[in-house]
């Protein structure tokens, strides 16, 4: 009985020490993961802004107006 209690007490001490280290390691790992996530988010925001600008450049307004006018003429021609 007494050795069992001694073993349990020893295990409790070791367990606490391990748990403390684990909490700390987990904290560091989670913090690093959060950091990576935040960096990825910032990268995604920058990429999205660039993509928006690229798409805006891709549809040139003058061309859109020209196409809209052609479509309108076609529709009006069909109506008459």
């Amino acid at each position: 009985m007494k050795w069992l209690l001694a073993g349990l007490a020893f295990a409790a001490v070791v367990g606490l020490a391990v748990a403390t280290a684990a909490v700390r390691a987990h904290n560091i790992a989670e913090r690093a993961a959060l950091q990576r996530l935040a960096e990825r988010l910032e990268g995604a925001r920058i990429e999205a802004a660039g993509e928006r600008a690229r798409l805006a450049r891709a549809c040139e307004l003058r061309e859109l107006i020209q196409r809209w006018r052609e479509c309108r003429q076609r529709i009006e021609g069909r109506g008459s």
Partner: protein
Amino acid sequence: MTEAWERVRIVVCFGAFGAIALGLVARLSDLQVVRDAAALRHTLSQEVASDTIAAPRGTIVDRAGDPLAIDRPVVEVRAQLTLWGDARADGDDRPRTLAEFCTARDRFASDVVLGLSRCAELRMDVAQRDALRDALRHRIDAALVRRCERLDPSRFGLRDDADGDATVDPLRPTPLRDVERIDVLVARDVQHGAVLEELRALDYRRCRSAPRGPTRANDGRVRYQVTFDFARRYERDYASPDVLFGLVGAVSDGAGVAGDDRIPVGGLEKLRVLLPREPGHRRARADAGRRLFWTADLAEPEPPILLHTTIDVGLSVQADTELDRAAEKVRASYQGSPPEWGALLLVDVPTGELLAGASWAAGKDGQRDLHGAFAPTSRVFQPGSVVKPLHVAMGLSRGDYGWDRTVDPARDGALSRSRTIREDHPLPVVDVHDILVQSSNVGAVRLGLSMGPQGIEDYLRHYHFGEPTAVLLPGERAGSRPADITTLNPREQTIYAGPSVLFGYQIDVTPLQITRAWLSFLHGAERELRLIRGITCDGAFRAHAAPAVGPRFLDPHVARDVRATLVDVLYEGTAKHIWGDLDGREFPRGLVGGKTGTSEYTGDAFRWDGTRVRASIRTASFACFAPVEEPRFLCVCVLQKVGATKFYGGAYAAPAAVRLLLRALDGA
């Protein structure tokens, strides 16, 4: 005795374990619960670095709220590079020869290129990879040269090329023992998240957690240690930049990332309200073990201000197209010689909002200079006959004469023995209707003189000639007008300045100013043009105070009759030849009214090809509005040509203005 001693030992052992366990629990509770706030404060106070995050410039938006000029964030990446040489017994791994330096340098360049080539977004081919590798090598060499300037670079085989690149002679001894770290620009405008991820993977602070790190050289050694600085900066994006350059302006490319060092060039970009607001900060902290401790301690820069304008991008594109057509028509009519400049403006009459403003300027090669000065604000001209309805409506409103007043151009042109007003084309006896429709100079002068000096002065004041407009475009010229007519001597009042301003001479206006004068005419009261609606700052819209409406000076019935008279200008007057230039468009009589203007004077002028000549300077203009009964749109077109004859507003300016007006009516 033995049992008692054994019991004591057991109690002591158990007591010790228990005490340790209790101590650990107590310590844990103390740190995590009791001293939690203090510990966090302590950690947060361990700041090791603070990066400034530049704030973006304000965003300019059109009348629909879509951006015309907006800052796009990009990331400038710089490497803090430490290069290593061969391992040595004394533990000093710094490179001792330039060959060692070159090995380490090339390894770093290869690793960066390898990382970036993994990014599918970049789609780098072999040539691009080689170019990037060479660029990195050159930058590292250049950085080394800069760091070693104090050490007499030539002594170490470092030299600057004529084009600013630097090269390293590998056979010379290296001064690198005196250089701890090299700061190298890796990329100036990274905008892909994957690229940033790859570069971060090379950062030695993250190597343990990153899937990829620096590769090893042939001798198995990692030859460098790098940390990256990622600084946010901005590129300015413009909607339809060629069309809106004059109104919106642009900013020059900045040289560095410390703050915003871009310089605004022209247009609304010059307004101070667009300057970046307070920057943000990102703080790096260290824990008790001096390890970097990420805390999400990030203060974003203040969001940009939104500058709301009245610009309609679609109509601006139309205005640009129509003005270009008008200029090309001039070129075709004058054996390839283009007009010196042109301007086309469209205004929403009820609000005075400027919807579109196009500018045309000839470069020295005769082609259009897309980035020339913005003609609507920077060019002045004598408006000519386009001002006649403005004072005729005043004279009729004041009762100085009636619609039945007649003038005989052949007899009434002589103001004195020294000055005779002449017509551009012979005219019979004309009444007020014909004076406007046939654009009689003699008639306009005789009617205007009926108002007396005070009446002429009121005409100049009500239409604000010689004053800049309220559109807030930087650099607008003020124009000019004669001194107060009532203070001039009688000869000036009745023979020179007084009569001249009545048919658009001795007045210098910008296209914007003549547009403002016509806006006031259509309202019958003093009005101002408007280009800025307001700003949105921190989510709250603050309207820009609308320009005050001045006193009404035209009788509404008279103004309506004058507008109705101007319809005839397009059918039997000076603009009757436009119909062949309207792309087959037809519209009911009474929809559009307008007035031509053609001024001519001889003076020194710069032609489009840069030569200075003394020649006839002719300015053709046309102002039109629709619908006539209740004007919704006002359009003004001005073209100037040096050394031309038969250059009339009805032939060149009117078609472009009417076409744009019809486009505006289509979408209204």
